[in-house]
């Protein structure tokens, strides 16, 4: 195991703050996937947008490294940066002309929609088709959620951030976070049902 791999995130960040570039690289390797998925779910397709967000988020980590203090978990700090960036990007997107995810990409019947294009490259099986369908439906449901509910859901459900830390990040009470989570789950349930997907 490489020396850096035995260190906690906070220790790595402090090392990076002191100038150890390798510590930053280790942090990136550890958290790039989680941050990328957070951005991808928050912003929705296309993935390029999430890639830009990922780069920008870690650049902000770089620029703010000098002011980092290990008063909270590194992931809390990191996802705080991520959510701020994604919220800004999301608002920017609202002012831009966006194409409907459900709009067909061509005039052919049964043509793929833009949503269909947002898919991992995987061979088609029944199971994977069902999984893809669920993913698309969930993404659509997320896109329709208010920002505050969406971020709570993604952070808790996918990034595993506890409710208390989400409350710290967002500046609201833990009860409020839990309420937002409940609303988000209920909205997703409704959306899945409308799409013919019965939660079970």
């Amino acid at each position, binding site marked *: 195991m490489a020396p850096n791999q035995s260190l906690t995130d906070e220790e790595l960040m402090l090392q990076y703050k002191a100038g150890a570039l390798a510590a930053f690289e280790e942090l990136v390797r550890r958290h*790039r996937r989680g941050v990328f998925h957070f951005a991808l779910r928050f912003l929705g397709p296309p993935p390029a947008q999430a890639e830009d967000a990922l*780069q920008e988020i870690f650049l902000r980590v770089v620029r703010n490294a000098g002011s980092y203090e290990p008063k909270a978990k590194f992931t809390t700090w990191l996802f705080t940066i991520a959510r701020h960036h994604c919220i*800004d990007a999301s608002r920017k997107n609202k002012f831009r002309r966006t194409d409907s995810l459900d709009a067909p990409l061509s005039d052919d019947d049964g043509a793929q929609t833009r949503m269909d294009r947002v898919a991992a490259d995987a061979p088609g099986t029944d199971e994977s088709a069902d999984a893809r369908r669920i993913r698309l439906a969930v993404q659509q449901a997320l896109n329709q959620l208010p920002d505050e509910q969406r971020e709570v859901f993604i952070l808790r459900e996918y990034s595993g951030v506890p*409710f208390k830390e989400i409350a*710290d990040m967002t500046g609201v009470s833990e009860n409020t976070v839990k309420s937002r989570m*409940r609303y988000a789950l209920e909205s997703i349930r409704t959306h899945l049902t409308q799409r013919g997907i019965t939660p*079970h």
Partner: protein
Amino acid sequence: MSACERQADALMGYLYGELTPPEAEAFLAHARGCPGCSQELDGLGAVRRTVSRAEPLPDPHEALTARIFEAARAEAARVAAPVEKKASFLEKLMRPWVMGLAVAGAGAAALVLVSSNQMRMMSTEQLAKQAAPAPVVATAPAAPRDDSAKEAVLQDVSSAAPVTTENGFGSAGDAPKKARRAVADKVEREEAHASLGAKGGKADPRGGEGIGGLQGAGSAGGRAGPTGAALDEESAEKRPSQQPIMAQKKAAEPLPEPERKAAPVVEDRKADARPMASMAPAKQSPLSLPPPPPPAAAPPATAEAPREAAANKPASPSPDPAAEAQERPRAKAKLEAAADADDGAAGNALVVPGYKRDQLRMQANESSKALAKDMKTFGAMKNELRAQEELSAGTNALQSGQLPEALAAFQRAEGLHGGDSVALNARAGQATVLARMDRCGESVAIVKKIGQDAPRFSGRPAVLREVAGCFDRRRDVVTAKALREEADAAGRLASNTADQAETVVRAVRRDAAALLGCETSATAAGELPRAQGMWTVSVEADATGHVKTAHARGPAPAPGLQRCLEDLARNAVIPSLGAVTRADVMLPVQTRASAPQAAPPVRARSRASEADKATEAR
């Protein structure tokens, strides 16, 4: 609150495994007995299970990771090399070579105009001396020039340069050596041209255009303006009135081949289009400056000679005062007669040497000074307007939540250097945006700088509170508290400042009116800078802008002052700013002097009446 409402949060905690064992047990016990909670728990649990079966998302590309590493290295290198910091716009502007270049360019441009005047004058005087015995030098045009004479001319030019540079931009000591050499080149060309008897053809009527000619040079934007030869070339092409004089050139002896093929003065001009240009020596400079005409030069007899026979004074840098005194009345009479005759060629001021030359020179001096001042002021005002526009864009973006766009707009506003107040507001905007982006460190650095530069800035308390909020979100309550305390202190200071500012404004207003002739009292020229120095911060642009705002809400001004200020605001170049000093710049001196006596226009009077009524109503 019902038991289910109390258990709602526990349900979520249980669903995500965040309850302690006793809490989980308690919730389960409740759920077994509550169908609603039990159903809710099952339903939400099913959603979670379904969501977990979704297709996994793709991972980020390795290339992206590599880009992140590269960016981190670049950032580290940037931080480690502070000397490579990009210079601000003002820093670039203040670099000596930039300043020198700007001054040299402006000075050269101004001197080009004056040189053309002098060349034309010299030409005419040479023509006028056709009856006079030609000196040896002038009658031997084919002879190669004496280098020693040329050096002497260079020396003359060097010593004479301060005289000419005071015509235009820059100071006497700013004329570059290159320009002086170019002046010498001009002298040589003039000599040769005079010896051909075709000097008049090279006259540049633009020299008599004053501002027009200077504007042409000034529009080069500090670059080297057109050379005298180029000016002459253009003028010869464009001015039919010069044709009779131009015709003399054809009768003149052509230049010897070796000299004609000498390097041209201006690279992008036709080098051999005219003898004058082709006579240019190898030394080239786009900054042609007029030399004082050599004392002994005189042209041979030409067709214009009879006309100029009476005016046979040589154009020398040290004319005989007595002779000139005798010459001026005659010259003036001639000019008036020519003007009456309405003859384009006869009305040419070149006909009368000496007197008109001095007049034109003085006019060019005044015009160039005024133009320089106006252009500088206009440039500054344009900058400020653009900066204000960027500030507005930044504010709108901030309110819309478009933080990166807001940050960029505020940075652009600061970079435009539109004035102290604009810069302060731009920095405050940046600090606010950064605080909202959770870049607390950067934000607090800016707000500290604001505190050092402008502790009385009225916007400082709000910015400090924004930054405090940033630290709150980071759970740094100590720093947040300190910032809030500082915000409170800054608020008290700003309030005191406003009271002081009001006192100053009243004094400024009174004295600004005095300067503009609305009342008789001391000048405002000293008051306004003092006011600006007293308080460098204001929500409005500056002290002069505050005058316009304050008088609307302050004590009712005298009707005369009210009307005067209204006129001033209307005359401002940028009405929305309406600064008194800008109006002062735009109003000509004689208008200012006569302002109190002049009856205000009807429109102004009605506006003033309305304003007075509004003030009285207050």
